[in-house]
Structure formats: C-alpha cells, structure tokens
C-alpha cells in the first residue's frame, strides 16, 4: 500500500476522533484549573464540546464515498458518519440526564466527563475500524474507560464489586478476541479487514474457523449474548445509574459496528458458519433474557435482562446474513438505544440521594407522584414490548421480515413467542406505576425543567418514529448496502 502524505484532505474524515482527543485534553486541563468550586463548568463544557463535535463532523467528516485512511486501518463511510453523529447525540443526552444524579451523590467530577469522552473515542475508533488492530484498539479504549466509570462511586461496595467482575470477565473476552485475531492473522497473513474479506472464503480451513469461534465469543460477550451474559446484570445493577445508562446506550453502537465490520465484512466469507453460531446464541439469548427478566425485583437488573433479550433480536438480524438483515439489526440497535436512554433517564430522575429508585416497588403509584415520569416510562415499556404505534414495533417487524426472507421459520416462531413473554414484565412496570397506590414516604423526584423536556422529547420521538417510520428505516437501509 503506497504511503499517502498527511494532508488536510487525508485527515478530514478522521476529524471526529482528532477533535475528541483535543477536547479530552482541554476538558481535563479546564477541570484541573476550575478547581472544586466550579464543578458545573466541566459538565457544561463537555456538552458544548459534544455539540461542537457534531457540528465539526457534519462540516468536515462527511465523505462522498468509502474512504480508506492511515494505511488501510481506518475507514470513513456513511455508516460511520451517521453512527458518530448518533454517538455525540446519545452521550450528550445521557450526560444531561445524569447531571443531577451525579451532583447529589458528590461524584460530579471532571474525570467522569473525561472518561465518558474517552469511551466515546473508543466507540468512534471501533465504528471506523478497518483492521484487526484498530478493532482491538477501539474495544480496549472503550472497555477500560467503562471499567473505571463503573467503579466511579468509590465509596460504594457494590459498584467496586461489579467493576471488578466486569474487568475480570472483560479481560477474558478481550483475550479471546485477541487470540482469535492472532489465529486469523497467522493463517491469512493480513490484518486488514478489506484483505481478509477477499482472502477468507468458504469453506475455510479449520484454523480460520477456530479463530472465528473465539471472535464470535468475544462479540457475544461484548453484546451480552447468552451464555456470555453473566457480567451484564451485575454491572447494570451495581454501577451508578448514570453509568448504567451510558453502558446501556452508546457502546451498543460500537458493538453493532464491531459485529458488522468484523463478521459481515472481514469474515464475510464464513457467513454460513457464524450465522449458525449466532442463531444458537440468539435463541438462547431470547429465551434466557426474557424468562429470567420476569423474576427480577430490581428494575435495573430487570432492564439488564431486557437488554439481553433485545440483543437476541439484534443477533437475529445478523443471523439472516443479508444486507437487509444487517440494516434491520442497525435499526433495532438505534431503537433500543432510544428506549434505554428514556428508561434509565426515568430512573435517574426518580432517584434521590439515599434512594436509588432501583427496586420495582419504588415505582408503585409513580403516576400519582409524578405523571410525566410515569408517562415516559409507560411509552418506553410499550415500545420495547413491540406494541404499535411506537417505534419498537417496527424494529421487531423488520427482524421478523428478514427472517422470513431468509426462510428461518422456527426463529420467527421462537422470537414471536418470546416477545409475548417479554410483554409480561414490561406490562408489570406499567401496572406498578398506574394501577397501584403510591406509598407515602418516597422522596419527590428531581424537578429540573430542561431535563424533563429532554425526556419528553425522547418519549415523543418513539411515537413520531412509530407513526412515520419510513425515514429512519430508509436511512438504515441506505447505510448498509
């Protein structure tokens, strides 16, 4: 590959990452000099930086066609462009929801914002990865930032415990990923995903398949697919809710991109093999996620199992093994993130210092205490249950559709049955909020007008995208060809 000179043109597509690195440094410095007294400054600065990042991305990073940078290790395309914009938006909304929560618990530190931004950088690197090494770089950058975030509330034992679990299990998964990559590299002699795509054919050698197995395990771990899901409920429950919100949203983009770039592009030659593996994982994930969610009494843990169940649907999109299927998975991922933002946002607003609002019983009669939060939560729950007119319905419809198109009869039946099981525990939350009487002694939720408006818009988006689903569906189909 010829050396390309570093010019503005050759760097422009990578502007989002470069911008983020600069922003991280600036914010870190600003936080040091702002001192203890002006904590709010860092948060505001971060939100401004995210808005600026989106603007810079729109202005400079859009590429007319697929562009390869940095000796083939970085790819800029429409998918990356849109996912990065989505990343900026999701993280900004998440930080907005989290601010009061962090402040009340005394963990509103500059480092929190810096870690969020480095995690976002990891997401971007993954989204644009075009070689095995870049993939690994992105995975680790994201994972290390998130480990630290989970342990951020250092006085909380349960946070530290879940961070430890996450770290140890995550390290094993990273090892599996690296091991699999080394096998693939050793047998094909290349790290570039583009070259792998042309080298790896079906039927592949046993070595390639071994490598593939390890990579699929790592992807399944990162997404939280059964049987590699053990970390997810513990981390969701143990982490501070603002961190749970982060883990539940933005990284899903990255792991979608991980699966897409690595499996469907680089190892696209082995689609028959990995789609069978994913089919087994998807069925297990759907069944375990939905069934175990029913017996949870902790809302964060229940939502963790709900995440697992939703990951099952995302995997089914990959199982289809067609561009239509991948675009269905992308659509599902984006829709899922929208719901996760809203539901964890409600938990953040409902909780106060000393009252985490994480048990299901804390939501009894929420309608009487705070109609807006209850309404938002209800829309979120109906949407994930897949009831029209909310957007979650279309996400499920797309998955069913691609499964029919690829003749996966039993997968349609199983996923349809499981979505009914799922409806039960979503309905239970609505039941608690609307049909039960409120207990007296719960503290009032946070009343911050701006955050509430954002939450309202978040919920309204579910309805608008549900009634007029065509634009987002078209976008997802256009991004994956």
């Amino acid at each position, binding site marked *: 590959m010829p050396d390309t000179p570093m010019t503005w043109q050759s760097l422009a597509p990578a502007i989002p990452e470069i911008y983020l690195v600069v922003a991280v440094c600036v914010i870190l410095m600003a936080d040091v000099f702002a001192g203890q007294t002006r904590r709010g400054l860092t948060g505001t600065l971060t939100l401004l930086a995210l808005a600026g990042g989106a603007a810079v991305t729109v202005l400079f990073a859009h590429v007319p066609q697929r562009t390869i940078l940095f000796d083939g290790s970085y790819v800029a395309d429409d998918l990356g462009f849109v996912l990065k914009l989505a990343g900026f938006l999701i993280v900004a909304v998440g930080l907005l929801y989290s601010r009061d929560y962090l402040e009340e618990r005394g963990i509103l530190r500059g480092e929190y914002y810096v870690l969020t931004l480095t995690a976002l950088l990891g997401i971007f690197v993954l989204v644009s990865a075009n070689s095995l090494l870049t993939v690994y770089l992105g995975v680790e950058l994201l994972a290390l930032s998130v480990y630290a975030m989970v342990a951020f509330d250092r006085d909380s034992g349960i946070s530290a415990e879940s961070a430890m679990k996450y770290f140890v299990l995550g390290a094993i998964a990273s090892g599996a990923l690296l091991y699999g990559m080394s096998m693939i590299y050793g047998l094909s002699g290349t790290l570039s995903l583009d070259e792998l795509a042309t080298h790896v054919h079906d039927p592949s050698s046993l070595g390639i398949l071994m490598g593939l197995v390890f990579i699929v395990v790592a992807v399944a771990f990162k997404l939280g697919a059964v049987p590699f899901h053990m970390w997810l409920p513990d981390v969701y429950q143990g982490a501070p809710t603002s961190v749970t919100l982060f883990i539940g949203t933005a990284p899903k983009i990255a792991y979608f991109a991980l699966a897409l770039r690595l499996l469907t592009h680089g190892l696209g030659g082995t689609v028959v093999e990995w789609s069978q593996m994913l089919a087994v994982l998807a069925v297990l994930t759907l069944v375990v996620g939905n069934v175990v969610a029913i017996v949870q009494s902790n809302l964060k843990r229940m939502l963790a199992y709900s995440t697992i169940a939703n990951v099952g649907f995302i995997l089914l999109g990959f199982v289809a093994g067609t561009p239509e299927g991948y675009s269905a998975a992308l659509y599902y991922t984006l829709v899922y993130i929208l719901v996760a933002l809203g539901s964890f946002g409600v938990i953040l607003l409902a909780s106060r210092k000393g009252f985490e609002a994480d048990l299901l019983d804390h939501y009894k009669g929420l309608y009487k205490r705070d109609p807006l939060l209850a309404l938002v939560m209800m829309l979120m729950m*109906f949407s994930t*249950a897949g*009831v*029209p*007119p909310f957007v979650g*319905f279309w996400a499920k*419809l797309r998955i*069913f*559709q691609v499964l*029919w*198109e690829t003749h996966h009869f039993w997968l*349609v*039946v199983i996923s*349809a*049955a499981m*979505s*009914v099981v799922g*409806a*039960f525990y979503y*309905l*239970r939350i*609505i*039941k608690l909020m*609307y*049909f039960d009487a409120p207990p007296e002694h719960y503290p009032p939720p946070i009343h911050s007008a701006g955050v509430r408006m954002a939450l309202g818009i978040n919920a309204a988006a579910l309805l608008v995208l549900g009634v007029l*689903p*065509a634009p987002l*569906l*078209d976008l997802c*189909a256009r991004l994956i060809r």
Partner: protein
Amino acid sequence: MHLLSILIWLPIAAGVVILLLGEPRIATARWVALLASLATFLISLPLIARFNTGTAAMQFVEQLPWIARFHASYALGVDGISLPLVVLTAFVTIPVIIAAWTVIEARPAQYFAAFLIMEGLMIGVFCATDALLFYFFWEAMLIPMFLIIGIWGGPRRVYATIKFFLYTFLGSVFMLAALIYMYVKAGDYSIASFQALPLTLVEQRWIFIAFLLAFAVKVPMWPVHTWLPDAHVEAPTGGSVILAAIMLKMGGYGFLRFSLPILPDASRELDLLLIALSLIAVVYIGFVALVQQDMKKLIAYSSIAHMGFVTLGAFIVYQIVRSTGGLQGAGMGMDGAMVQMISHGLISGALFLCVGVLYDRMHSRQIADYGGVINTMPIFAAFMVLFALANTGLPGTSGFVGEFLVILASFKANFWYSLLAATTLIWGACYTLWLIKRVVFGPVANARVAALTDVNGREFLVLGALAVVVLLIGVWPAPLLKIMQPTIHHLVDQAVASKIP
C-alpha cells in the same frame, strides 16, 4: 372529502385535546368528549347515504404512501362488511360517553380521552385496506383498553387486564408473522393483493392457524375465551360495553376479511374444526352462563355463546356448498353472521349499560343482591326486559334476525348442526330470563332495592336510543342486508374459489 380519515382522527384528536385540558377542566372536557363522539357519528351517516350498494368494491377509498420500502400505504376504504361496523362503533361510543358523565370519579378526563382514542383506533381497524395499517390499529387498540380496565376496573382488575393483554398479544403476534410471510411472497401489504396471492395448501394451513390464534382469541371462541369473563367483570361499564359491542366483532371481522378470502382452501379443509368450536361455544357456554352468580359474568358468557353464531355462520358456507352442490343461498350464513355482529353489539352493549345503571346505585353485581327491581325502577325494568328478550332472540328484535339466518343456513348444511345451534334459543332464554326473574321481577328483596330510584334523563336517553335501534333492525333489517349483500356475494365467490397454484 376524506370521510374515513376524519372518522379515525377526529376522535383521536379530541382525546388528545381532553388529555391536555386535564382533570381541572373536566366540565369542558366532558362536553368536548360528547361533541366529538356525536360529530363522529354524524360524519359516519353520509357513508350510509352515499354508499353504492351495487358493488362489492371498496368505497370512499383513500390512499397515501406510508412506508415506501415495504410498499405499505395508508389505505382506507369500506365495503358492505366494514361499513355497518364503522357506524356501529361511532354509535356505541356515544352512550359510553354519556353513561360515564358524572359516574367516573377518578381521573374522568383521562377516561373520556381513552374511549375517544379507542374509537378512532377501532374505526381504523375496520377501514384499513392495508394489512400493515390494519395491524397497526389492531394492536394500538390494546393500549387504551389495557389502561381502561387497569385503572378504572374492579378489585381484580390487574389480573384481568394483564390476562386480556397477553392473550390478545399472543394471538396477534402470530398473525403479524403470517402477514409478513405473505408480504414477503406478495411484495406489498395490501389486503387485496394478499387475497389474490396463490398459496399452497400447506402454507394456507399454517397461515390459517396463525390467523385463528389472533381472531379466535378476540371473538372469543372456546377454549381461548377465558380472558373475556375476567375482563368484563373487572372492566368499568364503558369498557365492558366497548369490549362486547366492538372489540369482539373484530375477531369475526377478521375471519370474514382475512381467513375466508385469503385462505379459501385451508378454510374449506378446516371448516369442521371451526364449526365444532362454534357449536361448543353455543351449547357448552350456554350452560356455563346458566350458573353464573354475577350479572356481568353471565352477560359475558352469553356474549361468547352469541359470537359462536358469528363463526358458525361464517364457516357454514362450505357445508352448504357440499350438501346442496351449489352457491344458491350459500351466503345466508354470512348474512346472519354480519347481522348477528351488529345486533349483538347493540344488545350486549345495552345489557352492560343496564348492569352499569344498577351497579352505580347498589355497587354490586351479584344477582343475589337484587330482586324486585321492577317495583322501584319500572322504566328501567322495561328496558332491561326488552334487551333481555332481544338477547334471547325474540322475533321483532334484532337478535332474532341474525340467529334465524344462521340457523336456517346451518339447516341447509346439516340438520344436526341446526338442531344444536337452535338449542341456544332454549339456553339463551333460560339464562337470560332466569336472570330477569331473579333481578327484576318478584317482591322487593331487601331495603337497598327498596331505596332504588328509577333512571334519570341521561340514562333514559342512552337506553332509549339503543332500544329504538334494536327494534328497528328487528322489524326492518332489509336496508342493513342490502348494504351487505354485494360484498357477501363476492366474499362467497372468493371463499369457494381455490387459490392453490
């Protein structure tokens, strides 16, 4: 004029306005609700006036692109099957609103809003000519009903509403899977192209079972009927009325709109299953109704038995063709099924309103708590007796026309079917008249009954309007039959034609 769109979106918009007005301005909200429901009904009347009874094609058609990728469109239209149901929906919502005028104490504005949104969604179900749009309305409807039963229902409302939701959701999800399967084969979601799509017998069987799950739960047919008594007992009066009058009809409508024309071969093959289930509903559920202690539960079981006539009438067509060898009179069962749906919508709605009138005064639905109501509430008693007689199928009321047509049609098919079906005239009379005997007639049973006051003007208006329509259809069903005729002829042709490629 986009009449159908107005019919769908006007009540929904009014519902949103009422939600925005909120509980503090309930006085205004009530009038908005009433005016919106009246306006919707008035707007539905030109549909009848301008309906062309010479064609089976969809009328008042509207079409807008919705999701170009799936070739799904916002396509509306009515024919002889859906028009009466649309008008019925618009009509029944008015008494529901009036009956709840001052009765609902907790969150009344939301109560009215829920029913108006419901109304729009239900009309959408009947008007949609695109399967995806149909499903969209069909499922969306669950949300307001879930909340209506859950928020304003009785003591076991949570159990009842979750059971209701999950039963219907389970059936519907498989219907969705079947619809998507046909989309993948046909290339678009319009119901017309599904009807034209050739399908092998194996495919038809599977799709038939998926549809059966959805529609049988909704009708409801034995043995998936168990959600209905629970939902009816726990629902507030308005919820029971809408459930019995409209939502049950969607199952019957689904059989006529989807199962028969899209899957004629599977329907022919499996018709005995449906006939058997219908007859079980008619006979067995009739017995179950006989032993009920709770008035609402009794009417709920009676609804299941009466809906058995709808499914019997719809699927008897193949037996008629088999035994007579021709299409002559084959549509009679479907005629009966349609009339039965309209008539049962009115009568069961009226009976639930009657129970509501009693419940508002005594806060009990137990038959044993009543007795001799006629002594203190003579006008009410007259209405209740009228609706009870209509429920037993008394000639001169709408209940007679539907049951008579279905029994006649099943007689053409097989003597034994008609004999079993006709026993309902006995069971129906038994459980309904015994109910009347215990509740309305006899000496005043206790002090609370003695203290009852007769219907007020509002209640009189509601029951009176329903009584007029029940009698009108009973003595002069011809206009209704005339509207349905061409569509049912066409439907019979579709149902007996083979689609196997």
